[in-house]
């Protein structure tokens, strides 16, 4: 089971979240070529190593967030701490 550190809810079972995919900057729609759009929509780096990815906390805070995960070891880099929980505002 993969435990995903949600920045709002804390560590959660990955089944409670939705994996959105690799996190990459969106091209400027006014200047991007068709080739750049295609690469953005369909091409994935899929590295064996560190990868920035987007998750959606569908059963918890219903927020999107980005994390960096090692796809080989499933370890998250600098997992966030839910400081806002139980009144502890940042």
């Amino acid at each position, binding site marked *: 089971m993969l435990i995903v550190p949600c920045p*709002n*809810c804390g560590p*959660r*079972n990955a*089944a*409670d979240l939705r994996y959105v995919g690799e996190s990459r900057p969106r091209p400027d729609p006014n200047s991007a070529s068709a080739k750049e759009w295609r690469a953005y929509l369909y091409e994935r780096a899929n590295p064996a190593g560190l990868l920035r990815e987007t998750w959606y906390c*569908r*059963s*918890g*805070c*219903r*927020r999107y967030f980005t994390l960096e995960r090692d796809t080989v070891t499933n370890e998250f880099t600098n997992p966030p701490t839910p400081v*806002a*929980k*139980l*009144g*502890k*505002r940042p």
Partner: protein
Amino acid sequence: MLTSTRTECGSVAELPAFESPVSRSFVSDAGASMEPRRPGAALTLHDVSVTTKIIVRAGPETVAGHQMDTPFGASRTEDGALVVGQRPDEWIILGPAAASRALIDGLDRSGHVSVIDHTHSRALFRLTGDEAASVLEKLCSLDWNDHMTPDGAAVSASVAKVTCDIVRNDLDGTRSYLISCDRSYGQYLFDAILDARHEFGVGAPADAAG
């Protein structure tokens, strides 16, 4: 089993009414309740769906956001209503039955604020008893220890694969949880909790057992 599904040429008026413990609560203040059958057991499951449920979404800069005055993950009682910080910038107000108008009118809706009455679209159950946490542990992956979810804590999580909002709201020192979900899942969730808590002493309702 009787259902509300329309079949063949039968008109809606001819079909028998669908009855469930969840939907019954909308026409009865009592709601459905499962009392412990085993002597010594002290765990109860009540359908309290008649409770007024108002969802407020407001930015931190709005008057409504300050009115809520409840941080994410916590809850407090005010004038008989329970204000729950369910998600960042989102609160649920649980009040007495048929109090929607009074609760909504008491909110300042100026600015970027959304106020929606979810009373009839959400089912709400109250699970009470010292072993209530043990029941939830069978259905949900969260940690229900006192240090993680003390009295007043609010979380959202998957319970029996249904996304639920859960508030710990102890009654006279007895552990108690308010569990709400979409009304269409209410019957299933009610049955799932009842099934999970069977080993702790609550039996099936008399009408269902027969």
